[in-house]
């Protein structure tokens, strides 16, 4: 297969179009602008809609409308904009609508900075809206994975009627790599009998709604949704294990930080330290089993994050206090070096 050199932001956009997404609603923000710009150029050519909304709130509500109408719809933003979309994420979940959302993370809090960051882990995995719900979160670490998981995102969104977020960052969004653009055969259900497309007098009316005034009923609906989440945990949890078989120390990192960590693992191995890497690919559901399994074998974990340490909480939970968990971090848009990660590996082993 021929490969093309593409920026991460543009690769996601092209994959979405290839996946049949014809409705994109956006709002400008760095470092995700190339994604929306690509859509604005591409959508009119494929008979789709590119709409620059008046805000991120409006954009995600347009996604809600388009998703309710049964089409594949998507929006993208960066950290401050994703915060605004959290209302919509909750309504998407409450209405059981499929949607795809991209967060090209930048540093915060507040206006923060436009440099790459991983400080939205909590927002993506733990929150991002009120009420009992989850967003499925993919954390690709290469442009190829950005493409592959964009295809997967649309399928998973429709199969389980959930929102899937691609959690990337300014490094992955902006960098270029050769990528094979191959659309896999979709595994999503062909029909959306729940969509609001007009009854045409041929079926009972459909209602897309998240309001349940009866607490007894809302409890049932929420529990049923979490049964679907359990299915997602069973079927869709993904992580990459790199040299973990004989590892005495496991680095845990996702996205851009995992690329740096992998270099650090090689450097450690060259020094005779048996280091390995556990790379969560889905952040929700979190690959807790892989961590727990490793906890019985390794001496310690080092979590590498471009934040003050957020995923580390899930690693600690998964490791059940069996082994020490160290944090190697840079924040505010700073990126850790392989040497810094190596130092952290050596420290925790001491």
């Amino acid at each position, binding site marked *: 297969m021929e490969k093309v050199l593409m920026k991460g932001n543009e690769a996601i956009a092209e994959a979405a179009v290839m996946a049949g997404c014809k409705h994109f609603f956006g709002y400008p923000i760095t470092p995700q602008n190339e994604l929306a710009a690509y859509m604005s150029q591409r959508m009119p050519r494929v008979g789709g*809609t590119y709409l620059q909304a008046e805000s991120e709130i409006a954009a995600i509500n347009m996604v809600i409308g388009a998703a309710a109408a049964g089409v594949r719809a998507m929006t993208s933003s960066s950290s401050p904009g994703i915060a605004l979309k959290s209302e919509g994420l909750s309504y998407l979940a409450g209405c059981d609508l499929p949607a795809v959302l991209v967060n090209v993370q930048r540093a915060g809090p507040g206006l923060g900075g436009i440099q790459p960051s991983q400080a939205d882990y909590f927002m993506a995995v733990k929150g991002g809206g009120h009420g009992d719900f989850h967003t499925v979160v993919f954390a690709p670490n290469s442009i190829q994975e950005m493409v592959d998981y964009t295809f997967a995102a649309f399928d998973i969104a429709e199969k389980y009627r959930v929102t899937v977020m691609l959690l990337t960052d300014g490094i992955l969004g902006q960098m270029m790599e050769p990528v094979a653009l191959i659309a896999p055969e979709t595994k999503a259900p062909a029909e959306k009998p729940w969509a609001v497309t007009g009854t045409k007098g041929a079926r009972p009316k459909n209602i897309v709604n998240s309001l349940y005034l009866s607490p007894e009923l809302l409890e049932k609906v929420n529990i049923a949704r979490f049964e679907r989440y359990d299915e997602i945990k069973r079927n869709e949890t993904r992580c990459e294990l790199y040299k973990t078989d004989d590892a005495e120390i496991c680095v845990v990192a996702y996205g851009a930080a995992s690329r740096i960590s992998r270099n650090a693992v090689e450097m450690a191995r060259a020094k005779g330290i048996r280091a390995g890497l556990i790379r969560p690919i889905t952040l929700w559901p979190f690959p807790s089993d892989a961590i727990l399994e490793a906890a019985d074998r390794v001496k310690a974990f080092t979590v590498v994050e471009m934040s003050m340490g957020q995923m580390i909480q899930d690693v600690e939970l998964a490791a059940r206090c069996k082994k020490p968990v160290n944090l190697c971090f840079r924040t505010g848009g700073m990126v850790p070096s392989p040497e810094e990660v190596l130092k952290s590996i050596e420290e925790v082993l001491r």
Partner: protein
Amino acid sequence: MKTVFQRPNALTDMPTSYCPGCTHGIIHRLVAETLDELELTGRTVGIAPVGCAVLAYNFFACDMVQSAHGRAPAVATGVKRANPDNIVFTYQGDGDLAAIGTAETVHAAARGENITIIFVNNAIYGMTGGQMAPTTMPGQVTQTSPYGRDTTTAGFPVHVCEMLASLQGTAYCERVAVDSVPNIRKAKAAIKKAFQNQVDGKGFSLVEVLSTCPTNWGLTPVKALDWLRDNMMPYYPLGVYKDRSAEEL
């Protein structure tokens, strides 16, 4: 026996949740009669707001979406862009449309989005128990303007039709009232035009309906109609504020 009056087919047989004497019911009926007469029910997707009309998804017989507070025009935009052959309308109160959802309203109009908005102005937040709304009039007493709306601290009401008429994207906006039979007839004609415009692809149409909230105004239904006539109609003059629907496309 000849039937001279019945429930429009575009309304379900679900009893509405509105207080006795509330004019939301009349406005529902006018929308439903329009859907019947233009034979649109099977093509239509309605967007319910957050407000007393939140349960409108149960009352209209067409496909419905329940949206977040103020976001109905954005949701309607998504539905319409997905399936342009659908007729898409929102039904929103003044808090929903002119406070939290101002941006969504103004920009749907500015884009000339080919949708229909039924805007129910009752000068108060009905559902939450009668707080000051963006359309509460100077001096009007509400739960959160207990001494009357003081414009030096609470500012002035939003005149939605006047504001939207200034936008190039607005095809049609008219303010009507449902206080009397002649005005109800005019309101019906305006609503019908707002839907016909969408069928004809004319673009953004909004009908502002001056409506009562006897419960939170603390008035009987009849006195509420008088209050609407005596206080709201002079402050919110009825009439057509913009009409490009006669223009050739």
